[in-house]
């Protein structure tokens, strides 16, 4: 080839120096796991969004439903098996009481940092104006009833309805 192509460049291809990314205005956070380490990150992100004036929805699906189930939410434990971050050999992690012990230790550390227990945390997030939703498919699968959930649950919704709620914002899956 002897001809060289001039790169096509429009005037506004390079953003002006003062142009900044648009701030996030809305997030929809999906919590799908039922361990303590699976539930807290999503709760922290939802609460943090509201603290910054960002609109937030939290959608609980599969084992994440534990966090909004009355009898279960404050019994959620740290996974000590299959969790390399715990630095605990699988057989030790499987010993009776190990998960209980790890949860106790983590709860004490979190209390020191002013992290609320799951029930209080979800209530705080609901009080901050965030929507709390349960996934219909999971609710049906686990055979749960409205009475099984905490009062703060706004609604049980389908995936389609979730996407409607999430319109115009970011979706974070945890």
């Amino acid at each position, binding site marked *: 080839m002897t001809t060289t192509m001039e790169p096509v460049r429009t005037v506004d291809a390079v953003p002006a120096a003062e142009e900044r990314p648009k701030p996030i205005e809305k997030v929809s956070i999906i919590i799908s796991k039922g361990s303590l380490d699976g539930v807290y990150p999503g709760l922290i992100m939802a*609460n943090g969004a509201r*603290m910054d004036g960002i609109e937030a929805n939290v959608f609980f699906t599969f084992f994440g439903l534990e966090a909004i189930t009355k009898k279960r939410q404050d019994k959620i434990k740290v996974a000590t098996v299959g969790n390399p971050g715990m630095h605990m050999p699988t057989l030790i992690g499987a010993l009776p009481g190990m998960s209980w012990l790890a949860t106790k230790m983590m709860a004490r550390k979190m209390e020191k*940092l*002013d992290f*609320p227990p799951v029930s*209080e945390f979800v209530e*705080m997030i609901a009080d*901050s104006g965030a929507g709390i939703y349960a996934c219909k498919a999971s609710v049906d699968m686990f055979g749960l009833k409205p009475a099984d959930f905490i009062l703060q649950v706004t609604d049980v919704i389908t995936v389609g309805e979730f996407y409607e709620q999430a319109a115009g914002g970011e979706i974070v899956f945890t």
Partner: protein
Amino acid sequence: MTTMELSAVNRDGEGFLTDPQQWDDALAAAIAREAGIQELTPRHWQVVRYMRDTYLATGEAPSIRTLGKASGVPIKELYELFPKGPAKLAAKIGGIPKPHGCI
């Protein structure tokens, strides 16, 4: 004593005072107006003073959880008073640095 004016105090890029001592009630009201709160009600003041007093006493701004429990204003109301984020906005109006906690 003259009242503090917005143009006369040192603030960081986000509008937080860099020196908590350069503050008075009139300045607080001016920062609030700038942030879209036209009038500070007694309930606003309760939160702002709690934030400021806690910071001045401990060197740290309280978390939103503590604010909800100890300021006398529950979380729901905190968000009605300061829709753009109660802890950060109350800190800004109260003339203290931006809170850095994740909770």
